[in-house]
């Protein structure tokens, strides 16, 4: 690989690294805590544009053979994740975080970058850890509330267990196939012997835990509620997207064996039902988003069962739509003291206080519920068409019926906003400043995807 080839292939990651260093240095040098919003934003935009540019030129290569390679799909995935991270930054800017939030965010994104172009299980492990570790800090960083530490702890311990399970899976793969490359994992996928079956299941279970699939989802609701709004936004959209896209890359052309298929289908459907039903009773908005994201993780895992060539396109499109709508909803939450702004009953009668925000949240809710004409429907259609294409018609129908359970919880939010009178004295003001900016960016993106899904699909 020529030096500039090396530079070019991993350009997004290099830019991120540059950003982190810049913030670190400026933070050390200056006396009073400087706000790191601008440099972080520039880094993100640079990395994102680089990824899009490289995707456009169809550049591909393997700067570190066997461990790190890039192709158009990888660049598309990175571009989409960095794009989703931009509104998160805007949300963070509203909260009075110092530069640490930005730095941790960029570090985590760097991990995601590695994960998405990983060729060897080593790199997968390394990327996954680099993605998660900053997150534990992000969850605590949010604001002065004891629960946030509790949330971070739960996330950390279960994350740790997940890492251990992943590693055990890797070692079993090593044992079964004698190597730790992604190709070895795919051979293990096909393998029938004890070691390879164990290896595959452990690795997939680790990913399930990171994506919060039932029964490994326990950390998610508490972590989402404990974290600050931008942190939750980041966890629900970018992290979940990265995990699923990594799994798609890891599976590559190979399909899940019959046993693994049964596990994935069962747990995915259970997650959809569990997430949708549990969300019905939530009083906190972020906790509702947590359970809804568990359900959406179920859809994503179902998409994983599709034919190999359609998998990436389906998961990527779904992550874009799902990510954008979540960000839109979280961006429009009324501003105020962090714990209070999250309560559902201060959303009551929101239409009369802040009509724009109410309509945007309603749009987000309906898109998450998969009701046309919003993009969520196209995404849901794509997922179930992919599942049916791989012959699992019954699974698709079961998934659709399970998704029906997920309509009421979103309607409930709309009902609070439009149909019930406001509470006595809401101490929350309408969204302003950067929050609105984030809302508008995501709204524009949602409308683009909604009206021209064909274009986005074509680009992927």
């Amino acid at each position, binding site marked *: 690989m020529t030096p500039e080839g090396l530079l070019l292939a991993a350009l997004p990651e290099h830019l991120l690294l540059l950003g982190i260093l810049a913030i670190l240095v400026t933070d050390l040098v200056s006396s009073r805590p400087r706000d790191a919003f601008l440099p972080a934003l520039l880094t993100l935009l640079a990395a994102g544009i680089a990824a899009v540019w490289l995707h456009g030129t169809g550049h591909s290569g393997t700067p570190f053979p066997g461990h790190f390679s890039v192709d158009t799909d990888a660049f598309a995935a990175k571009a989409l994740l960095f794009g989703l991270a931009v509104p998160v930054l805007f949300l963070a800017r509203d909260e009075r975080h110092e530069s640490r939030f930005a730095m941790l965010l960029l570090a985590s994104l760097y991990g995601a970058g590695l994960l998405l172009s990983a060729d060897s299980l080593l790199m997968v*492990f390394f990327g996954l850890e680099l993605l998660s570790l900053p997150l534990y800090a992000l969850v605590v960083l949010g604001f002065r509330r*004891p629960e946030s530490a509790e949330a971070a702890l739960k996330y950390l*311990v279960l994350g*740790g267990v997940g890492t251990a399970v992943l*590693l*055990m899976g*890797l*070692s079993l793969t090593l*044992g079964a196939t004698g*190597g730790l490359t992604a190709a070895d994992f795919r051979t293990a996928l096909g393998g029938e012997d004890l070691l390879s079956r164990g290896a595959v299941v452990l690795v997939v279970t680790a990913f399930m835990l990171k994506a919060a699939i039932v029964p490994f989802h326990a950390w998610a609701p508490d972590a989402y509620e404990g974290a600050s709004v931008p942190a939750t936004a980041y966890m629900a959209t970018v992290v979940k997207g990265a995990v699923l896209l990594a799994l798609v890359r890891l599976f590559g052309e190979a399909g899940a064996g019959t046993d693994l298929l049964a596990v994935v289908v069962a747990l995915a459907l259970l997650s959809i039902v569990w997430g949708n039903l549990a969300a019905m009773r939530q009083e906190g908005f972020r906790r509702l988003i947590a359970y809804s994201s568990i359900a959406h993780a179920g859809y994503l895992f179902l998409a994983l069962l599709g034919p190999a060539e359609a998998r990436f396109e389906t998961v990527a499109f779904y992550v874009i739509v799902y990510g954008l709508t979540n960000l839109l909803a979280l961006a429009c939450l009324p501003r105020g003291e962090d714990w209070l702004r999250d309560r559902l009953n201060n959303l009551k009668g929101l239409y009369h206080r802040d009509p724009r925000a109410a309509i945007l949240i309603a749009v987000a809710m309906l898109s998450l519920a998969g009701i046309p004409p919003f993009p969520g429907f196209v995404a849901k259609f794509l997922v179930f068409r992919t599942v049916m294409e791989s012959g699992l018609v019954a699974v698709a129908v079961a998934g659709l019926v399970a998704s029906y359970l997920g309509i009421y919880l979103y309607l409930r939010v709309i009902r609070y906003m439009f149909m019930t009178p406001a509470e006595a004295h809401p101490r929350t003001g309408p969204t302003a400043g950067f929050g609105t900016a984030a809302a508008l960016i995501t709204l524009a993106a949602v409308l683009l995807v909604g009206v021209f899904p064909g274009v986005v699909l074509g680009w992927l």
Partner: protein
Amino acid sequence: MTDANLLLAVSGMLFALGLVGVVVRRNLLVMLMFLELMLNGVLLSLAVFTQLLGAEAGAVLMFLVFVVAAAEIAIAVPIVLLLVRAGHTLDPGSYAGLKG
């Protein structure tokens, strides 16, 4: 070959013991230690496979595991400190504010 299987069994045992420890023990720090125990179980099995199949990738992974384990603990301990400063006890049972 039997001793390889024996060692593998031991590593599996370590791994399982670690997880059970996390479930049972009432002290946060001890739970973290059990997490480490699980990783040790993994390290052992990695060592066995590397030796057995002569795949050096396993060795590289072992070092990575050390690095990551250390990083994990580096983040875990301050969080526990933050928690204890507010809750004054190491028993995870009392930190159950977020539920439902």
